[in-house]
């Protein structure tokens, strides 16, 4: 059971949903594949996807919607099952 942190490449404001009326990209416990979007970071009116680098189970989020994040900050944890 190896945990991997999903890092945001850019600073800004974190969102778990593509827009306020949609479901979250991922919920805790969901399966993820490498390249899946787990959230968005709004940076200077642009939305940058935060993608999982490795497949597995998204065990938990470390930040929530509207939280301020720094570049390189972990936003979620993926358990690769290994």
């Amino acid at each position, binding site marked *: 059971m190896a945990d991997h942190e999903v890092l945001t490449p850019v600073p*800004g404001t974190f969102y778990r949903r593509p827009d306020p009326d949609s479901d979250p990209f991922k919920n805790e416990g969901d399966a993820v594949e490498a390249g899946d979007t787990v959230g968005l970071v709004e*940076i200077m009116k642009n939305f940058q996807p935060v993608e999982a680098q490795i497949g597995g189970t998204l065990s938990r989020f470390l930040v929530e919607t509207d939280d301020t994040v720094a570049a390189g900050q972990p936003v979620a944890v993926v358990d690769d099952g290994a």
Partner: protein
Amino acid sequence: MKRVLVANRGEIAVRIIRAAHDLGLEAVAVYSEADGAAPHVRMADEAVAIGPPPAGKSYLDMTAIVEAAHISGAEAVHPGYGFLSERADFASAVEGADLRYVGPKPEHIALMGDKARAREAAEDVGVPTIPGSDGAVTDADEAAEVAGEIGYPVALKAAGGGGGRGIRIVHDEATLHTQYKTAAREAAGAFDDARVYVERFITEARHVEVQVLGDGERTIHLHERECSLQRRRQKVVEESPAPRLAEATRVGLFEAAIALCAEIGYRSAGTVEFLVDASSGEFFFIEMNTRIQVEHPVTEVITGVDLVAEQLRIAGGEPLRLRQEDVAPRGCAIELRINAEDPANNFMPSPGPLEHVVLPAGPWVRIDTWMEPDGEVPPFYDSLLGKVIVWGPDRASALARARRALGELEVEGVKTTKPLLATLLGEDWFAEGEFNTGTLEAWLEETTNGSAGG
């Protein structure tokens, strides 16, 4: 009126504070936790913290801003551009709190903010609009019927959209049917309004806008600005006068802008935007922006009129001081927008510490900015760092001065659009004034091709 609160940040907050001080008024700044050290906070006579960094919790918090006005003893609120500047409910909240709103009446913000109603208002006074549906359409079939009448390509536009958001271009009926549903859904999500309308898409269009000033009784125009050079419908370079614009078209634009504003009794500064068909010279009303615009200095430089100061005077209850014949533009002005974006990396936003800043200066160079050495560009707001505005007695000398001024600009610490602008200023088609609203993006695709913007 002695004290005005500036409900904004960045270069426009600095700009408004300067206008207030020029008039002998005191200025109150508001700031988020990300902007405690920002220049607008230092320049103001008082500054009030209004919340955490994300704009939704600070610069868009109407209650916090009205509260800040009360605790600081401000009598008026200037919204700047962006943020709450086109929110009729904000203007109403300000006026409802016994404060003066430095801008139009709330009902005019609401009218022009609804593209379908704005278009009707233009048609009512005989201002040409782009051929299209009579207001919003009810479904894809009606959209297809309208498109069949006016001819493809057509644009599907969100009734509640603006600033280029919520627009889809479709080239045939099959695509229209598939795109209609997406357009309506996106409109509902983005603007809380699923209504969509249809209009002709002009292939070679120039974006030309007319600056107006009104006091609720009388309106004057302050000539035009050419703003066709856009990327993703964000303006990059603006100038006045518009090159290659027939005099008859220019006069027609002024008359149309005045007719629209006179009809409603418009108050404060505003901009009436038109598309000019480059091939036929026909022009069409597209929208009216009921606020000061980013590119307003271009007009100030050629007319000698301080538009922000005039806004403040009008908000203070003074009648418009200028007659139409007092507005006598001279020479040519060009504005270059300096954004914290990396043109070599698909315009990726580039926040961070400003390590080194040298601003251009010298004859007929104006810099509107909040950049300063050791400053910090937060990731939470738009990427505009500043504007380089130059004047020359004619377009060629203004262009030469733009190259000189841009050459003096040094910014280290964040990536900026300076290299892209420098390349653009060397292009023959730009020097010749031969461009339309599609030119910049086509040029970017051609010249960058995934690599540098120069």
